[in-house]
């Protein structure tokens, strides 16, 4: 049995994290071959793995139509609770480069920019070593390190930085006016790695894992009260409990889970553990996969205190451009700290949807979920008590560095 065949039959074997197993990338030179590959990506039902979950084929087609495009492989991962892109770029950089080269051929781009966070020098080193090992004709390849800010990876903020501006969002659509003013495909590195797999094995193979509506595997960062925190690759639809098992299992009694990162939402552990890891599966809880991070909050931690810390962090990470974000995010953090639930309910609709990017929306969703899930804890704090016996912070925060 060949290595590839063996890896096909084991449903737990990795695809994205299987380095050195996939063999050379097929060359798509003729128009007809490229059209065929575009059809495969569409048939595979691949969606963006960066958080927004937009259909990849639609995005590729839009940029291809515009002509003269640039491809940006987005490995910035400014979300402090997410490590999956850093792990992918370190373990399997060639698969990401394969995907970027393939995407460049599909959209007719002659330039690829790989963007990584400035603090992650190791990730950059792995990527540069991989790039040195190969020669991808017909395309110029650059690696750029961008500031370590939460919003730096937002597509328009990334384009803004690559054009010499600060890592702050703009109202320009990158697909229309991006790097050098040219139509730009900004695609998450995990999405690109999946493009490289579909280019090799096709849509049918891709759909052997996952659910019919949400096919494929995903990288999930599992943190908090688990025995081996880290990044696991699971098929979409895996019960959350099994995802946690893949990270060594629970290390303490779970109280709540933060699903989808800091733009995601808190859910009660008992409501979530049996649910499948898909957007459809999590919809009843009003949660989506987002950044595909699961943080397990143990019983002895204070969800309220954790949420205040993150709400303050998100307020600090506002790019400072849009009034409702500049004033609304600190106001939400203050209200949460003062246990003023009524004010939070008033602030959430006043903040969400009123920025140039979705930063205020994500922060509002996070705070709103904290108020709901930690209602008992808020009541306890009103009476001057806190459940926490362990004041070690569970949720990691970023460094809030430079904007340029």
């Amino acid at each position, binding site marked *: 049995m060949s290595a590839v065949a063996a890896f096909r039959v084991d449903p737990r074997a990795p695809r994205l994290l299987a380095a050195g197993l996939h063999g050379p990338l097929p060359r798509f030179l003729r128009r007809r071959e490229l059209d065929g590959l575009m059809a495969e990506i569409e048939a595979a039902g691949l969606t963006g793995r960066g958080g927004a979950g937009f259909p990849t084929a639609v995005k590729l087609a839009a940029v291809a139509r515009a002509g003269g495009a640039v491809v940006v492989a987005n490995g910035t991962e400014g979300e402090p609770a997410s490590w999956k892109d850093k792990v992918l770029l370190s373990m399997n950089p060639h698969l990401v480069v394969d995907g970027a080269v393939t995407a460049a051929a599909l959209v007719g781009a002659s330039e690829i920019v790989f963007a990584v966070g400035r603090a992650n020098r190791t990730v950059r080193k792995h990527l540069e070593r991989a790039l040195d090992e190969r020669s991808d004709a017909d395309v110029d390849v650059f690696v750029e390190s961008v500031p370590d800010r939460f919003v730096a990876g937002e597509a328009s903020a990334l384009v803004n930085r690559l054009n010499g501006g600060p890592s702050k969002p703009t109202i320009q659509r990158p697909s229309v006016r991006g790097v050098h003013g040219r139509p730009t495909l900004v695609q998450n590195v995990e999405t690109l790695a999946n493009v490289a797999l579909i280019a090799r094995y096709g849509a049918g193979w891709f759909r052997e894992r996952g659910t019919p509506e949400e096919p494929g595997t995903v990288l999930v960062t599992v943190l908090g009260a688990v025995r081996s925190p880290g990044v696991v690759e699971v098929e979409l639809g895996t019960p959350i409990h099994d995802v946690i098992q893949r990270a060594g299992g629970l290390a303490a009694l779970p109280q709540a889970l933060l699903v989808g990162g800091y733009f995601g939402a808190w859910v009660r552990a008992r409501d979530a553990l049996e649910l499948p890891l898909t957007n459809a599966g999590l919809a009843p809880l009003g949660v989506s996969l987002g950044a595909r991070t699961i943080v397990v909050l143990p019983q002895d931690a204070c969800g309220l205190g954790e949420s205040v810390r993150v709400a303050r962090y998100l307020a600090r990470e506002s790019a400072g451009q849009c009034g409702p974000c500049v004033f609304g995010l600190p106001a939400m953090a203050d209200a949460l700290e003062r246990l003023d639930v009524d004010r939070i309910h008033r602030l959430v609709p006043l903040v969400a949807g*009123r920025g140039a990017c979705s930063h205020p929306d994500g922060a509002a969703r996070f705070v709103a979920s904290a108020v709901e899930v930690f209602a008992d804890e808020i009541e306890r704090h009103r009476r001057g008590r806190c459940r926490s016996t362990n004041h070690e912070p569970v949720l990691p925060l970023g460094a809030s560095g430079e904007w340029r």
Partner: protein
Amino acid sequence: MEMTMHLRLNPILCDGYGQCAELLPGLVELDEWGYPIVPRRALDRRLEPAARRAVKMCPRLALSLERAA
């Protein structure tokens, strides 16, 4: 399909001068920090002249009228 007009705000440019709320009472309201809340729905035809004035008068040029199908 009939074309409708939408009032759009660029929240990056907006500094909360609040003139739009004065020129478009009942349509644009200011939040507690003085920033306009611009409804997403199609603009009532009768309000178009006032909206055009508000677009022209915005000191930050943050408002625009856009056609949408």
